[in-house]
């Protein structure tokens, strides 16, 4: 399976600021996703990061709040903008190389907004 490096591992941020999370994969992958896990909740898909085009966002998530970049097939960033305490969550990137390879997750970023 793909090896994913995600950073930062954790951060504590002031409300109103922004944080960019990076996800680097050791091989080219067709699909990359960003998930959020709020405290005590399961994972919820934020968006699909598309290489060379705008990300596809799920209902309830917008580009202004969660801008995503994917400049190539091995790298993506998620920015959490104008943060509030409600944004405190674990953020995870995930990749899939093909239908038979399953889904692999990055190590996650634990964000606390104070």
């Amino acid at each position, binding site marked *: *399976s793909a090896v994913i490096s995600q950073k930062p591992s954790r951060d504590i941020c002031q409300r109103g600021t922004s944080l960019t999370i990076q996800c680097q994969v050791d091989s080219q992958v067709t*699909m990359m*996703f960003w998930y959020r896990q709020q405290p005590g*909740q*399961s*994972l*919820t*898909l934020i968006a*699909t990061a598309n290489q060379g085009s705008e990300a*596809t966002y*799920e209902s309830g998530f917008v580009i202004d709040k969660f801008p995503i970049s994917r400049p190539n097939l091995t790298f993506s960033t998620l920015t959490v903008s104008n943060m509030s305490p409600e944004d405190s969550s*674990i953020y*995870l990137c*995930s990749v*899939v190389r093909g*239908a038979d390879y*399953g*889904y*692999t*997750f*990055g*190590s*996650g*970023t*634990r964000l606390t907004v104070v």
Partner: protein
Amino acid sequence: EDKVVQSPLSLVVHEGDTVTLNCSYEVTNFRSLLWYKQEKKAPTFLFMLTSSGIEKKSGRLSSILDKKELSSILNITATQTGDSAIYLCAVAGGGSQGNLIFGKGTKLSVKP
């Protein structure tokens, strides 16, 4: 609306016990069902079950997919304290291409 439901939500057992975790789903365009173990942040892949592979086993863990009942179980035999974690069930399918739909998870606590 696509959904994945896990039960129980939490479970406390003693070392050596056998546990069965349940997952049911209502997901359009079903492609596969996956089980993950989450101890800290990142879910760790356990199994992927598809129409062509409905039963998987790895050591003390095994899983079965019942496509007729739209459900799956994860069995853990001879549990150890290191099995304590949240076990997540996810289904690949639905309207969006490629993403996973997660259940809320089962929190397993194994006491010595």
